[in-house]
């Protein structure tokens, strides 16, 4: 309850902060939001395991995750009488869950039923009414950034190219933190480059780009020092997430990152294997992200989503195929976590859509819209601007 207030107070403080040059003076309080897009359609059924369902074990003879054992310190972690969390994220996401900093929304997704990666990723990132004409220059994070405007927005994409989700917002910096080398320019060179654009309308973008690159390089130097002292060898997504956390702690408010490798048609594995490895890395990354934000973790909300879930039954290649409903993760230091949220139903054959996959009972726009509304105190008009035609739904998580 107290945590909820922190989040909301941050929002009120923000409203009075006014518009400042976001480059230099992003206020340190106020909500932060990170969207983690799992591209490829991750198999949510082997993350959040419906262990009370015998149908689950019948449907996945070789890739089911064993039922949790009472009192065990490893294996799946029972979250309630029906659902258990995959062993691969037990120590990371599981421990955050026990601290009420994680919630899951099963049966989540979109009404786009194409089951095509491209089609569905696009439609989710655009966040526009399904079936109509699409405006490819307008993504929902772009509209969120425009709605917030000024310093409250401070958006950033941790990707090589700007994602569709950020389309339409005027200037969103982007920088992939995967392989950041030494700073490309020394101070003198930066100054000269900056001066070349001194009278130019790209001046802000040029300066921001040079500064961001420099700053990341500096943070990396700090990381290296810290790593040398504590001999921790972080790598991959964990390292990337830690860098994201530092940048969002200090400067940015709305972040986007995508993580690939989830299209497990073949040899998916169960408690161990391909999917478990990916989930493990993601879990460690999100934990690192939460830690690197420091106190600001209490003001941060992370949503992990994917374009669709996968077939409930395993296929002939010990994998799963494109499905529909999936499980969204909501994380944050100040959320009312430690629960499953949204509309649910019992997992049995009758619950499946087209006898194939999970239905969608919780529309992504309603879920995200509900979070945004509470986090930033949006009016109905502002909500409708971000997600037209889909009213926000309050899952009481923030």
């Amino acid at each position, binding site marked *: 309850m107290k945590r909820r207030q922190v989040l909301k107070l941050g929002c009120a403080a923000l409203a009075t902060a006014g518009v400042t040059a976001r480059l230099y003076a992003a206020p340190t309080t106020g909500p932060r939001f990170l969207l983690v897009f799992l591209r490829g359609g991750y198999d949510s059924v082997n993350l959040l395991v419906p262990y009370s369902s015998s149908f689950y074990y019948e449907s996945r003879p070789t890739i089911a995750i064993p039922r949790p054992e009472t009192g065990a310190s490893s294996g799946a972690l029972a979250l309630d009488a029906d659902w258990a969390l995959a062993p691969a994220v037990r120590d990371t996401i599981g421990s955050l869950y026990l601290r009420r900093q994680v919630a899951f929304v099963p049966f989540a997704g979109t009404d786009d039923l194409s089951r095509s990666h*491209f089609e569905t990723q696009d439609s989710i990132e655009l966040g526009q009414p399904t079936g109509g004409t699409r405006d490819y220059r307008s993504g929902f994070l772009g509209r969120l950034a425009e709605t917030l405007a000024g310093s409250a927005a401070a958006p950033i994409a941790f990707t*090589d190219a700007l994602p569709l989700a950020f389309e339409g917002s005027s200037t969103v910096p982007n920088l992939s933190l995967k392989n950041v080398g030494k700073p*490309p320019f020394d101070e003198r060179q930066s100054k000269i*480059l900056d*001066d070349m654009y001194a009278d130019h309308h790209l001046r802000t*973008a040029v*300066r921001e780009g040079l500064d961001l*690159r420099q700053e990341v390089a500096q943070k990396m130097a700090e990381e290296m020092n810290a790593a040398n002292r504590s001999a921790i060898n972080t790598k991959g997504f964990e390292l990337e997430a830690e860098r994201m956390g530092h940048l969002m702690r200090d400067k940015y408010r709305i972040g986007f990152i995508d993580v690939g490798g989830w299209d497990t048609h073949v040899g998916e594995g169960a408690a161990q294997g391909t999917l478990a490895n990916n989930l493990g890395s993601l879990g460690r990354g999100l934990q690192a992200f939460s830690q690197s934000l420091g106190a600001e973790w209490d003001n941060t909300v992370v949503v992990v989503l994917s374009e669709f879930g996968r077939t409930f039954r395993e296929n002939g290649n010990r994998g799963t195929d494109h499905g529909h409903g999936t499980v969204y993760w909501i994380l944050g230091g100040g959320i009312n976590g430690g629960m499953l949220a949204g509309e649910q139903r019992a997992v049995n054959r009758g619950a499946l859509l087209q006898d194939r996959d999970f239905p969608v009972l919780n529309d992504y726009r309603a879920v995200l819209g509900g979070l945004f509304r509470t986090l930033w105190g949006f009016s109905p008009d502002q909500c409708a601007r971000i997600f037209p035609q889909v009213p926000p739904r309050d899952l009481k998580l923030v």
Partner: protein
Amino acid sequence: MGAALLAMAPALLDAAPALFTLAPAVLAMAPALLSGCADSAHHQAPPAKAAALPVLKRQDMLWLERVSFGIDSESVAELHRLGRERYLERQLEGREASPRRALPAPVTAELASLEIAHLDAARSIADVNAEHKAINAMPDGPDKDAARKALNERGNRLAYEAVRSELLRATYSPDQLKEEMVWFWLNHFSVHQAKANLRWLVADYADRAIRPHALGRFKDLVLATLEHPAMLAYLDNNQNAAGHVNENYARELMELHTLGVNGGYTQRDVQQLALVLTGSGINARDPPKIKPEWASLYLRNGAFEFNPARHDFSTKVVLGRTIQGRGFAEVDEAVTWIVKQPACAHFISSELATYFVADTPPPQLVDRMAKTFQRTDGDIAAVLRVMLLSTELDAALGGKFKDPTRFVISAVRFAYDGRTITSTRPLFNWLNGLGEPPFGHATPDGYPLTEPAWASSGQMSRRFEIARAIGSGNAGLFDSEEGAAAAAAGFPQLSNRLYFEAVEPFLSARTREALGRAGSQQEWNMFLLASPDFNYE
């Protein structure tokens, strides 16, 4: 300090060498700048060059930038010799056949050595389908995984060959305007190599559907893309059949390819056009068994197939025109009707003017282009002529931000001026980093044609890093395509004759000042490529 002096120098000393003869003085005044530079090349200031008078007027140089992927000595000389109108006519001929306009010999040889030069779409589809079948029949295990991996790698290799082919042509074809148009149409009729088996098809798509029609008639271009398996697979028309209608392609054909989003069509038109398009799909195997009464309606052209058994033969109404159900002839009738619409002429003209003239093109110019489009039945060369010789373009010169492709290609054209690179990997990596790789746009709308999409902070600093990579070494451009490093790793001399003839006379004061502060030739190169002067055309 020295900077201010240098900024004034050209005016005081009346010729270009001043810029460079003074540079060593700057270095002497600031020895600290050089600490850490071990390479002796770092210590050399940009060499002084004999003064050269500008060969072209500023406007002509900027115009040349627009009708090419960037200036080089040959195009500057040709424009100087011919003037804009005659230069343009030569470009609009767009022939690669005549010897004078052939690609440089090493590029021709390289293109001929690619595997894609010996493949066509039908064979590629048959091959990849057979491979899939064989793999699926294998028992699970390491052999199956290895076979799957090998197939995947082959797809990646073929897609990269297509990229390589496009980048080499863009960089070295004397038919620069045609190559810009190939890029424009590939983007207008965008397909994404990552979908389905498109990696096997994109090279064929560029060479057989787009390039032959790049300066031809718009309707031919629409039909060529419509019948190409890359487009049929990308926008799912291969799944569009009577009783199982898929509207995806029909919608984009009107919204993105011909009429534009506000082109006056309705959802009903989309549905009706989708019915017209039923049965147009892909077949790389033997023809299916067809009822005798339909046999004469069955069509096959490479991997394109019109299968009457999958076609909806009802009467349709598209944009107010009644189309009698009778087979593939409906498609030709519908496309002819759609491209005749004033909205199509206007939309295509507007897209062209956005790419070539200005982010917000002057409406009166777009109107004139659209009139020409309609009068000439969609003659692309005629529309280009109106646009490229217009006073509106002249007034807009210098104000168009180079998109990533124009930026990296123009930098390599300028830096190496006719010398052919051996590896396109660096170009491809840079385009990936800047977010505009060929065949890499996921959505069917193609890459944006305007500045805001490419000038984000991350992209600007990335651009500067690329400027540094090109300016300070060979950047891997002369490595072998397989990755073997070039024997000599020098850096290009951007303060070359071309620079003095076509760039230096028109530089802005800010850029001059920055160049004057460069501590080495490499750094000077980098500042020039990073300057607003180089990034706008």
